[in-house]
């Protein structure tokens, strides 16, 4: 996924964590998930992302998730922080 300098990041590359790269704008929600457990939890990760985007009414966004086996709570938390950081950057 290509990002500009408008993108924000959140999280780490430690085991059990994830790294979120997020940029507001574009058309619709582009979500890319990279995870070793994608076969079993790719869908769960996508749902976590959608829950947060819905909660903040973010409809146009690019998100890349580099997951290292994080649980749902961590995925939701990291995406939420990234969304808040991106909104703050836009001055919203």
């Amino acid at each position, binding site marked *: 996924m290509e990002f500009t300098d408008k993108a924000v990041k959140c999280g780490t590359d430690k085991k059990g964590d994830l790294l979120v790269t997020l940029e507001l704008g574009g058309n619709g929600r582009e979500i890319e998930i990279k995870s070793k*457990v994608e*076969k079993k939890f790719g*869908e769960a990760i996508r749902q976590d992302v959608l829950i947060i985007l819905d909660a903040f009414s973010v409809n146009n966004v690019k998100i890349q998730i580099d997951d290292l086996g994080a*649980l749902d709570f961590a995925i939701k938390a990291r995406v939420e922080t990234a969304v808040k950081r991106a909104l703050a950057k836009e001055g919203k």
Partner: protein
Amino acid sequence: MLNPSLLNEINQIPGFENKKAFAGAFAAKPNGRMAARPIKFVTPGTNKKFSLDYILDAVGLKDGMTISFHHCLRNGDAVMLYVIDAIAKKGIRDLTLAVSSLSAVQDCLLPYFEQGVITAIDTSGNRGKLGAYVQQGKLKKPAIYRTHGGRARAIETGELHINVAFIAAPCCDKYGNINGVQGKSACGSLGYAMPDAEYADFVVAVTDGYTETALDYVSIPQTQVDYITEVDSIGDPAGIATGSIRVSKSPAELVISKYAADVIAATEYFRDGMVFQFGSGGMAIATASFIREKMLQDSIVASAGVGGVSGFHVQMLNEGLIKTFYDPQDFDVTAIQSLGTNPRHHEISASAYANPFSANPYVNMLDFAVLSATEIDVDFNVNVLTDSYGKLLGAPGGHPDAAAGAKLTVITMPLLRNRLPMLLDHVSTIVTPGESIDILVTEYGIAVNPRRQDVTDMLRGKALPIKSMEELKAKADKLTGKATPVEFSGKLCGLVEYRDGTIIDVIHQI
């Protein structure tokens, strides 16, 4: 239980016509006689030492035969590649590779599979490229995965007939006596080579420790060895023996190990004169170290230890906490040296260790065994062969054997690894049946198999975090969240054999 239609499919495969489905750990009632062993004869002074090329002709190796190796050189082995390359150059094809196990180092054999030199596998486990080859469905018939005891049984009953056994020999004298405790490539116990040496039509020692002087320590006797061939190196010592394995430093693993030791000490099996087996992973060693503390506290001594040996086992042996050790395999240099020097440290064969069709394998002495697991299910069935996606990565090894023999079998295992739940409704592959497993210990609590009401009674009021399997399962599910189910439906490409020879599960193409 194995699906009847799968069994039917298995029975259509040449060589597997008589395979039966697993029906219980002790359901088999064998009778009859052991396989006949070849009569051997040499006149005094006969030379056994030749080039491998000469020997391959002399033993009459032909297309379609079965060759065998042991895995006691573990990830340092160079003998399989050396021998199979020589065989390939002779144009021999369609061999069955019968080996006590395969390590990552044997990835180098892949070209010989692709050329058709080897078309069938009979092993305890394989992983890496060979595992992938099996699961691409490229073998002529499904690979067969046996337990250590099951392999000895198959050899001794004639189910697995070996034409030529090539035995990597760290030390071999000119008469053909072999040991694993001397030489630059010392590997310790040769337990897993012993059934092959006894029953193969021809036995060839491949050694980098040849000596004209008769050995004073003999693991495999000259009476079984037909030929000797000398090579520069049978393997890489760094891959043969690990550095000393230390107690786990992971706080979570220590929690599990401590619970395991506490739960064992709370049963009647923890007593003076007990017999036990521990694995050699960091968590098993941690459990052993907590057990050791309790033994010192209560002035308790074990009459015997059974199974693979590492430095920590040797420490307990030397401290007198274990009186004697029965050893089919050694993992580190300390263990190898101990086997060679300590008269209370005994080398035993895979058959003696675990063959269920014998008058009493050593695993039957076990009061308790502490084993690990890749996955476990709510019926206590254990998987140690494949990962959560059904991919080959481990080996049954002695797991089902020790679990069947021990009065108390304890599984130590984290409830999840990297988000994947390890406690499931159904394991990806059943290797050890739930009826052999008595206690599961995780970082979130301990579950006792409902079949063992007596154990539940022993643990009552002992301040242990006892949970039901369902409670632990709910905890795992809550943590990991909802998983998309993974279906295992690809073509049949491997058979998982229980120690008695019945089929307990299968491996699918992926």
